[in-house]
């Protein structure tokens, strides 16, 4: 297991490097002059030029990339052009909200998607199966913000059950946390639950058709036991893997959801930075979220290895 973990982590390093290279290259190509924004409305061209040099914007690509990498190694993601604050600090302030949002959305989707998909696979063509198929298609056909507005209208505006905006840390006020997190998490969970339900259904269909399930049935084991112990134990790896890949759906959805629900998270930071052309922040957040994605998948791979002895080989 340790060997596997080391190998898996080692394999993530070149990917992480490629992410860094891509993110840097993307924003290297960005037009516009961050120095001009930083200097403000009243600055003269000479001021802007001075700032350009101070920011190192006049140096060649490779030099800037290496410099940036060196900064990364020290946790320095640069400085926001717009606010003048370190990007790492901006990210640090917002990690909790996004992490909690994603975690809650994952829990909600898992709690809905896995049982629904399993039920659907147990009785192909049955009610649960149809529901998963229809829900699956719908889940991918409605834009996140519409769902957000719909939920906000129903549960915040009409019923007033939940808060419509903001974020409260669960470590400060758990009830407040629930009040603020449920709607956005449910919004995010919509497509993700559909994804999980579909992949669970497909995986379980495949696994329930496998020889060892037949063996288990021939042993006279209880059907529910077979589905849960023999079926899900095998389905866990593919489901988890898809959940990891699907974290991209969550991260992408967070960009919109956090804007709709006014959550001070990384998604909103991205949107704000994009609208302001605050390139160092875009760069930093994109990189951070990509690393987060890599890390999530790394963790999931390790989890899979813990569940499935074959993976460890």
């Amino acid at each position, binding site marked *: 297991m340790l060997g596997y973990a080391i190998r898996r982590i080692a394999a993530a390093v*070149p*990917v*992480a*490097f*490629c*992410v860094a*290279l*891509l*993110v840097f290259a*993307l*924003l290297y*190509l*960005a*037009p516009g002059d961050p120095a001009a924004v930083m200097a403000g409305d009243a600055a003269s061209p000479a001021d802007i030029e001075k700032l350009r040099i101070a920011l190192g914007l006049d140096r060649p690509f490779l030099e800037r990339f290496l410099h940036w990498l060196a900064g990364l190694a020290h946790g320095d993601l640069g400085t926001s052009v717009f606010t003048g604050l370190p990007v790492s600090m901006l990210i640090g302030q917002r990690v909790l909200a996004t992490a909690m949002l994603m975690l809650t959305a994952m829990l909600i989707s898992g709690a809905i998607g896995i049982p629904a998909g399993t039920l659907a696979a147990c009785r192909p*063509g049955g009610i649960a199966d149809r529901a998963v*198929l229809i829900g*699956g*298609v*719908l889940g*991918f*056909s*409605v*834009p*996140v*913000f*519409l769902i957000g*507005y719909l939920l906000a*209208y129903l549960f915040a*505006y009409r019923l007033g059950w939940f808060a419509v905006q903001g974020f409260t840390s669960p470590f400060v006020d758990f009830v407040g946390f629930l009040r603020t997190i449920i709607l956005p998490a449910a919004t995010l969970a919509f497509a993700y639950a559909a994804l999980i339900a*579909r*992949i669970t*259904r*497909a*995986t379980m*269909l*495949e696994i329930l058709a496998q020889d060892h399930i037949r063996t288990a049935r021939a042993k006279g084991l209880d059907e529910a036991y077979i589905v849960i112990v023999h079926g899900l134990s095998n389905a866990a790896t593919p489901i988890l893997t*898809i959940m990891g890949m699907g*974290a*991209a*759906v969550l*991260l*992408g*959805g967070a*960009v*919109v959801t956090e*804007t709709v629900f006014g959550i001070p998270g990384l998604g909103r930071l*991205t*949107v704000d*930075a*994009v*609208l302001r*052309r605050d*390139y160092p922040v*875009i760069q930093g957040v*994109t990189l951070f*979220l*990509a*690393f987060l*994605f*890599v890390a999530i998948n790394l963790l999931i791979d390790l989890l899979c290895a813990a569940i499935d002895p074959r993976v460890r080989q």
Partner: protein
Amino acid sequence: MSRRGAVPLALGLAILLAMAFLAVAAPLLGGDRDPGLILPAERALGPSFARPFGTDLLGRDLFTRVLYGARVSLLVGLGVALAATAAGTIIGMIAGYVRGLDGVIMRLIDGLMSIPPVLLAVTLMAVMRGSLWNVIAAITLAELPRVARLARASVQTVRGQIFVQAAIVSGAPTTTILLRHILPNIAASLFVQASFIGASAIMLEAVLSFIGAGIPPTIPSWGNIMAEGRSLWQVKPHILAFPALFLCVTVLGVNLVGDALRDRFDPRGA
């Protein structure tokens, strides 16, 4: 052919055909209404006989705008599906067939894939000027890694199959093997993937516009119309609702077709 999937497939195709018709016939259906005509006096009117979908915040006719929006959205969907599938397939085939390049290409693809599509598209839009073609390019790049991975995986599966080895033994050159033996056998799954990418591109365009990083707002895409209506959905829901309805129905149509095709090609796929 299985009966299951026939109804969704027919429904999906019907939706897409209808949308394509609306998009093509937009100038005819819109009559003399100009989608860009600004009439501040007729601002944000609700649906009426003369203006079936009402007007938007600048008094422009929503019905015409939504019809013209179909052009944009379908163009984005189709454009991205084609471009991403073509580019992804080529990359995937190169990676899947040329062993030496596989590692480098796939690391880059993995890297690209680690940036969630919405984020990547938004970031690209921050770098590029907002135009229809740039939106298509940005979404294409965002969707590209998925196709490339699928294509590579499919190529590797197929190339491991014995009929490909038989073709090698039969003296078939690499191009023949790729084009005659591998491509036709991965085409089905690529086609299915392309349909999903089309759906997701239409959705992504809407999201980009919603955020304010998409197609210029002068171009009436569904996303743009919705972005405009978002601030007042509580009082003027029609501005948001009509394009949203069209968007959802179209994406639903594409997804239905994609699902049905997948069920046909690969009944157990997800």
